[in-house]
């Protein structure tokens, strides 16, 4: 019996979401990297640089 992971969405919906990991559709690699850089810049601005000792 499948369990609800969250009250709002069914397990089936979330499994469909996870199946995207295996879908053949691929984004443009340059878009992916550009987005990563832009998002990281936004995160840094929002949360500030961390003092995590693993960062090097």
């Amino acid at each position: 019996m499948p369990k609800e992971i969250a009250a709002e969405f069914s397990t089936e919906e979330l499994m469909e979401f996870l199946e995207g990991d295996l879908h053949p559709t691929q984004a443009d690699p340059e878009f992916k990297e550009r987005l990563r850089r832009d998002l990281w810049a936004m995160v840094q601005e929002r949360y500030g640089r961390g003092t995590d000792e693993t960062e090097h």
Partner: protein
Amino acid sequence: MSGPTNSRAPSAATSSALASPRLGGKPLEPLDTWTDEALFAEVARGSEPHFNVLYERYFQRIYAFVYLRIRNHADAEELTQETFTVVFRAAEAWGGRASPLAWVYGIAKNTISNHLRRLRTGRERLEQAGPNPLVTTSPIWSYTPEEQLDLDRCASQLDERLSGVAAWQAEAFLLRHGENCTIPEISKRTGRSSDAVRSGLYRVKKLLMEVGVDSSAQERPE
């Protein structure tokens, strides 16, 4: 639940984090085995390796989820960006009330719904405008003579600007926005490099935006 471990090889940015020991000299689990909750917590502390793992974990699933519903790469990129922006801007507001997976899924779903709603609204307006949307007598979507003149001027400038664009650039623009082709596909069909295709698309987009700016400038008397 954070979903299955991402089976793809980690990027260079995360490789060092996967191998490096942490506090107290005791090696911890590789980052790609961490739960989403733990990764989000470290991102909020400003850790790029943890951010990279989360991004890598969710990028393909968000992109594929969006693309399967929108069937347009250009829009899928925009909506993927919008989804991720909401996720990382609101990460501190997530509050652990639902699983991160469900939370991110909800954001992606809402982003798509909003996009489809905007498309529907745009289509309805065009339908109301009739067969020639630049000239209409509809009381809902009608123009004053001055507005009609501005539209005609704008259309004329558009034609003039696009005539100055290289044929392959115009073709690339149509392939991207009309046929939903990816950059590599356009590159192959036009025989141009991916960088050249991107530059060309940017140039056409800029020209189209300049037409809008010029039209606005002409409206306002000095």
